[in-house]
């Protein structure tokens, strides 16, 4: 068990280091990166089966007691979300290998290793039971994403990169301040100990800490009004990079928020968070409607969907939390796939701008089908996973009698449907656009394209699998949520 936990964190790092060392040999370096990420993914699935059977596993790094050292906690919540996150990165890495020689490919020598580092950070962020280590993990994720975003050095990327880096740096600094507050208040940065001690604090401090970390994690999660960095930066990166960002980064923020705010029982912040959730989902959807580029539409959708997850959390009920976790699990792969399809669209049409696309359904029914399934899922149309997740969240809202947020969720749903229709009408229907007036090459050797299609199809199949498995996943989410809602179990596991 301990080895599995270590594997998910260190495996991708080894792959990254070897990938860098072997960067001149394209095959070996790809294999190294894939093996690193793949081993972590496999390890995380193994962890899921172990933890769901045997309960939370705690690893004391270096063998130190929780109040002295760092612990890693593989609870059900962590091992439910982690395998999906890692599987996504794995699929994207395959896509990236296929995309390398096209105009939109990331630098092949760096993308693999950097994704490996990102993977390691994701594993660490989800498994850590220590807030400072969470900070370090965030930095790992962020710094690798900074480099992934800017390593090609194009003007738009540097421009976007600056926004992205500076906003997230500010959030990181706020995180550090927050750690100072927590340490001053509780004398520890261990999550379990914080959860234990926080109830002895004056209400003002407790809520202050809660709302401070709402801002910190909220910036990563792109909630209202802190989301501005996302749509400005994501679309400029190569497709593969954006796909990973879209699937993972904001979700890490939500993940951290779910973990901390439930373990520390921040119910009092519920109403504020509900307002933020409503604003996030609606403004995100409006933002999506305003865009005229597939990648930007999809970027705004991320924001809108984060609102649903926040809503589930903010209800602070069992049903809501289950919904939020299920939404998280569903959203990560679906969003990634949509961005991958966005890449296929750009590859086939030479652009992802609606102005330059049209009639793709006729020329490539496969892309249309690959888009339609995750798009319907995202819009919450049954029988896909998005429907289950949305139903779970909305039902939780109705159970809690929170009518305004339910109405907001429904309105956001309509707007999302409209924006999906906008993409469909603009890209897949209508007459084909004369592509001689813009100069993006339609490129890529067929072999590479096949790899891209294969990776995307694999990912779509994965989202379908999640739809089919929605029942067991719901059960797991429910159990994971229950684990978070009773901090005593978590504390007991960490500090027996």
């Amino acid at each position, binding site marked *: 068990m301990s080895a599995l936990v270590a594997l998910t964190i260190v495996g991708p790092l080894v792959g990254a280091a070897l990938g860098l060392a072997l960067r001149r040999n394209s095959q070996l370096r790809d294999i190294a990166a894939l093996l690193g990420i793949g081993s972590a993914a496999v390890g995380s699935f193994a962890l899921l089966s172990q933890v769901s059977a045997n309960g939370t596993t705690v690893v004391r790094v270096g063998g130190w007691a929780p109040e002295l050292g760092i612990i890693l906690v593989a609870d059900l919540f962590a091992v439910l979300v982690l395998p999906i996150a890692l599987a996504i990165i794995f699929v994207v890495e395959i896509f990236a290998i296929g995309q390398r020689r096209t105009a939109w490919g990331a630098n092949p020598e760096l993308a693999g290793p950097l994704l490996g580092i990102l993977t390691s950070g994701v594993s660490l962020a989800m498994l850590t039971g220590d807030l400072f280590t969470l900070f370090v993990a965030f930095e790992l994720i962020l710094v690798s994403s900074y480099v992934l975003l800017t390593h090609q050095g194009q003007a738009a990327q540097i421009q976007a990169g600056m926004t992205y880096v500076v906003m997230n740096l500010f959030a990181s600094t706020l995180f550090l301040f927050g750690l100072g507050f927590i340490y001053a208040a*509780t004398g520890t940065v261990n999550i379990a100990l914080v959860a234990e001690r926080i109830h002895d604090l004056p209400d003002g401090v407790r809520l202050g800490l809660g709302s401070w970390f709402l801002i910190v994690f909220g910036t990563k999660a792109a909630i209202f009004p802190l989301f501005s960095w996302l749509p400005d930066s994501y679309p400029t990166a190569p497709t593969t990079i954006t796909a990973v960002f879209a699937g993972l980064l904001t979700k890490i923020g939500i993940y951290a928020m779910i973990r901390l705010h439930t373990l520390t029982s921040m119910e009092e912040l519920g109403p504020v968070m509900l307002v933020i959730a409503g604003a996030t989902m609606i403004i995100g959807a409006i933002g999506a409607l305003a865009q005229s580029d597939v990648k930007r539409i999809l970027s705004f959708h991320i924001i809108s969907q984060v609102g649903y997850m926040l809503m589930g959390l903010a209800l602070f009920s069992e049903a809501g939390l289950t919904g939020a976790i299920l939404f998280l699990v569903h959203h990560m792969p679906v969003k990634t796939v949509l961005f991958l399809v966005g890449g296929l669209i750009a590859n086939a049409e030479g652009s992802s701008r609606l102005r330059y696309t049209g009639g793709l359904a006729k020329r490539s029914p496969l892309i249309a089908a690959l888009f339609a399934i995750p798009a319907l899922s995202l819009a919450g149309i049954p029988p896909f996973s998005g429907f289950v997740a949305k139903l779970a969240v909305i039902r939780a809202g109705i159970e809690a009698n929170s009518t305004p947020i339910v109405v907001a969720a429904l309105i956001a749903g309509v707007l999302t449907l409209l924006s999906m229709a906008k993409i469909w009408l603009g890209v897949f229907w209508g007459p084909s656009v004369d592509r001689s007036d813009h100069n993006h090459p339609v490129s890529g050797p067929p072999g590479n394209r096949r790899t891209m299609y294969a990776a995307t199809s694999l990912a779509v199949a994965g989202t379908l699998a999640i739809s089919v498995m929605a029942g067991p996943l719901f059960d797991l989410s429910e159990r994971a949520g229950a684990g978070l809602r009773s901090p005593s179990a978590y504390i007991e596991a960490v500090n027996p």
Partner: protein
Amino acid sequence: MLLSLFAIHGLGIVCSALAGRRSMKSGLIAAAVAPAITATWAAISLSRGDSPAIFEFAWVSDLDLVFRFRSDGLALLMALLVAGIGALVFYYATGYFKADAPGGNRFPATLLAFSVSMLGLVLADSIWTFFIFWEFTSITSFLLVGHKHEDAKVRMAARRALLITGSGGLVLLAGLVVLAQELGTTNLSELSPVSGTAASVAAVLILIGAATKSAQVPFHVWLPGAMAAPTPVSAYLHSATMVKAGVLLVAVVGPAFAEIEAWKVAGLLFGITSMIWGAVGALRHRDAKLILAWGTVSQLGLLLTLLSFGSAKATYAAVAMLFAHALFKATLFLIVGEIDIRTGTRDVSELGGLAAKMPIAFISATAAGLSMMGAPPLVGFMTKEAAIEAALGLSGLDQAVGVTAITVGSVLTVAYTVRFLMTVFGPGPDIAVLPRRAAMTIPAAVLGASGFAGFVFVDAVSSIVGNAAVELNTEANVYKLIPWPGLTLAFIVSLAILTIGGLFGAVLSRRTTAAPPRSVGADLADVAIDGVLAGAPRFISRVQHGSLPAYLATMGFAASSAAVPFVWAMSLDHLTLWDSPIQAVLAAGIVATAVAGAFVESRLGAALTLGAIGIGVSGLFVIQGAPDLVLTQLLVETVIVVGFVLGLGQLARRFPPVSEAWKAVRIVVSLVGGLAVMVGLVASASKPAGEAPIESLTIAAVEEGGGKNVVNVILTDLRALDTLGEVVVLATVAIGILALARVRKTESMV
């Protein structure tokens, strides 16, 4: 059995997609198999009077998301209609489309996907099963309406349909969640009456959802636009099956809302308005297909009206009408499609004399039209009779409203039917007609004849309808369809309706309206949608303005407001002025330097300030007792200052100027930000809930970590994982810097 039906359909979809790659025709034929089998199964089950089969598969059982199907009398009747008409439509489409029409790999498969969605919907015995297939019909309908999507008008129509039915779906979703909560069950066959505010809300929400799907005024605006679809689609989805889904929904959940006034009132409002307005629309239009579409709105209104009355008799009549309507309306649509193909127009003012040129179509159309008017000897007559009987059977205000509404609606129905038949088949312009295609004529003839057959085999029809109605209202089993009622009041009313309506229609058919009426409702819907699309950029550009400094200021304000709760817990008791006077001096020096640094105009000066502050902070570390920090800080500061000077040395020496207003905002946000941090820190330390285990740490470091420098032992042992992460961060930064360097080097080589 139920499961294998779906499997057959699934197989059919794949086969038709594959076969359709060769030609449209093979795709359509492949697609027709599954509905044909289903229709046969339904017919046999109905004739044998099998007891309902149930299939259940739990998907997400905690959310009550189950796939539960039940083949009761109503479900079988609907399945027969869906699959039977479906099979005929597929056959018809082989005549409608040219064999080599484009889209053979998509169209038949999509139509079959719709067919199976509809089948799932009618067989559903769980609220959520019903909803799942409901949504799927919306999507497949969108794809089918947009079949000819190269045309911008078609795209708009498809978007309108999707948005209205999609929004309705969301409203319905909310309604169903509430209903399920009130009921405590999601099994449609186990509904019990609910009451209370929540139930009323659910009732209205569900009714709105149903009204969008069944094209009730004012949500009907998508239906005429949907006529942009190929005629087989219009005949199948937009008259015979999908638009019935809303009515069916009202019928099946009706028993739960029997005690809710809002349900009845809203239902009548929707129903009666649609019945009248739809018929008026049918009278105004010139396009034969639009006449029929508006007629559908009207007929659906009648069905909704009957169901809303909620009496057993009305329910029985509604089920009977639903059956009859599917038959005659599909017939008429198919014939319009045939006319369209054979004459090249659907405009009634350009058509005429087709009775002689298209005799078979004429006979089928007349049979269907008479059935629609409610004239004997056709099944529509019996059902219209039943409807009037039902209205007369009500009491008080209900009776007055019901009789009036149905009479007026029926008169108008007769009028537009007569107008339709006379303008198309009666004397008029001489128009060239292409040769007959059997594939188009036969299905219409079969459906048209079925209206007559229904009249002849009245007992069979009557019992089928009875068995279906009994599923909705157990008291409905006493009613029957009566072929020759004698001189009852209802019959007299019927005669009057036929006479007045017939005359009215005959008069109107002489005069064709000058220009086709504008589709105001549809235009309004489009304006609304476009308005949202146009308003979105204007709204979002205020939030997402693209200016990083403003984003950061927003974040600063957000963080400051997050610190507000700290204020309530703040106590200053634990504050001392300073730990040592030197600390105070250093602190003052640092702050003063920092403030000065903010106003330094040159980059070099800024770098120097940075260095000075770094040294000052190191001094604070010394006082704090942190030699490792001092060492590190000094080294780090040196590197950064050197890097700053080396890296940015060649930049313009001065910073660009900023506007005064923005400067003011920055000053405010930075002041509250600084305040927030101070408040947070002081408040957090006011009443700590735990202490660091310094002693055990020290012991652990020496005993187990083997080092006297506790900080170093923490970094390399106790918290080595952090250090591991930290150095990977550094390595990654290095990779990033190298990557940028390489980009620049390749560029400079070019």
